[in-house]
């Protein structure tokens, strides 16, 4: 039976894993390769690196991190953050990345998703969608934001998810800007609405504070996988404990 995936996400800055709250108070949390190896040993199903450097001059640093990680960690690795061109995608894949995640560049130039999927295959093109609940004309609207939630795009999350699927994306990572950082759980209504609207896998992201939240993302949010950062980084729960709680909730997991 296909297992629901548990995916730790590591923020990488200047070649190091950093932890912080909402991109402030960043603390060094170690060498990406060591942290990745630890998560692999704990039973992580995949790993996501988010390159929060985002300056073009430092792209080579993340490529080196990917190379070193892919040399000794034998599970799928996704990199997101600052992916803007076909060359960015190619360089990351050549460095040993399995999937590349596109966010702002997809909103600015949707055809970029199509070109990337045509060139490298849908299976390695992930689109990040960051919705935020706003009110428009007296009605709630799930508006896609870019630039870490600071810039509204006018796009509606469910419609945009369908569009990126038709452009060739193989997976969607959905990060609710309302839930992100709260540790109160994922935004389940938005996650379920997007998951049910598309036929590609959806990864729930943003808001996990307890393993039960990951279970909820799969059962109530209909997600294929759940991504989390702080609950693992701060040693609150191991991946193994998280999976046991998910299994107790009746979810197939790989233990």
């Amino acid at each position, binding site marked *: 039976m296909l297992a629901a995936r548990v995916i730790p996400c590591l923020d990488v800055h200047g070649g190091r894993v950093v932890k912080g709250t909402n991109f402030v108070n960043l603390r060094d949390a170690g060498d990406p390769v060591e942290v990745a190896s630890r998560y692999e040993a704990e039973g992580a199903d995949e790993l996501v690196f988010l390159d929060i450097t985002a300056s073009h001059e430092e792209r080579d640093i993340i490529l080196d991190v990917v190379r070193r990680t*892919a040399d000794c960690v034998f599970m799928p690795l996704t990199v997101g953050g600052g992916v803007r061109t076909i060359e960015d995608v190619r360089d990351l894949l050549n460095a040993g990345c399995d999937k590349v995640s596109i966010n702002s560049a997809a909103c600015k130039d949707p055809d970029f998703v199509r070109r990337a999927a045509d060139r490298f*295959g849908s299976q390695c093109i992930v689109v990040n969608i960051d919705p935020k609940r706003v009110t428009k004309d007296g009605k709630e609207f799930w508006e896609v934001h870019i630039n870490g939630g600071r810039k509204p795009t006018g796009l509606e999350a469910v419609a945009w998810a369908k569009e990126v699927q038709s452009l060739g994306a*193989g997976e969607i990572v959905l990060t609710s800007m309302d839930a992100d950082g709260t540790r109160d759980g994922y935004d389940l209504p938005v996650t379920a609405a997007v998951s049910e609207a598309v036929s590609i*896998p959806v990864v729930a992201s943003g808001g996990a504070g307890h393993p039960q939240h990951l279970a909820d993302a799969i059962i109530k949010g209909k997600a*294929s996988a759940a991504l989390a950062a702080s609950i693992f980084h701060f040693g609150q729960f191991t991946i193994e404990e998280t999976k046991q709680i998910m299994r107790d909730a009746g979810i197939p997991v790989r233990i």
Partner: protein
Amino acid sequence: MITIVDYQMGNLRSVQKAVQRVGGEAKISSDPHEIATADRLILPGVGAFGDAMAEINRRDLATPIRDFCQTRRPFLGICLGLQLLFEEGFEHGTHRGLGILSGDVVRFELPEHLKVPHMGWNTVKKQSDCELLEDIGDSSHFYFVHSFYVRPSDPSVVALTCDYGGDFCAMIAQGNLFATQFHPEKSQSNGLQLLRRFTQLASHSGAPTA
């Protein structure tokens, strides 16, 4: 020495590193002569069937790969490298494959709640004993990412099946010809164990014809 076929379709480095991790030596090559005369060959690959065959043909690699498989030296196809062994694929139109095995490659047609690509860790069921699976139990997890699957005409080549809205062929084995739909190089200890076995297989061939 294992030769990994480079035809610009996917992540060769991960395969090479995984082979090295289990004590094997591996080089990456797109040279037809090196491929035809390799000790053991791995055909990896991700992407679309038609593009992959076009790249293989552009580099004149179809004949060396077929010739290699004739010699009964150890061969391992991975993901698209499994699918290409068959006669015909239907990804974006109809394309001829390498035709080393008879059968075709078709897209998953599944009920709505089952997502395509089939992406993630799924369990496998043994259909026959094969040397690469000696240390791997039924219900072991492997990492899959694909939208198409193979339908071999000869059911006896199926070594593993996997259930995703119905059983499909997850691995074939026929003599020293092996191929997996999953990615052993991304399947942690189970995958590394399979690759370790591959590096240890006796090569049954005589000297390759130069």
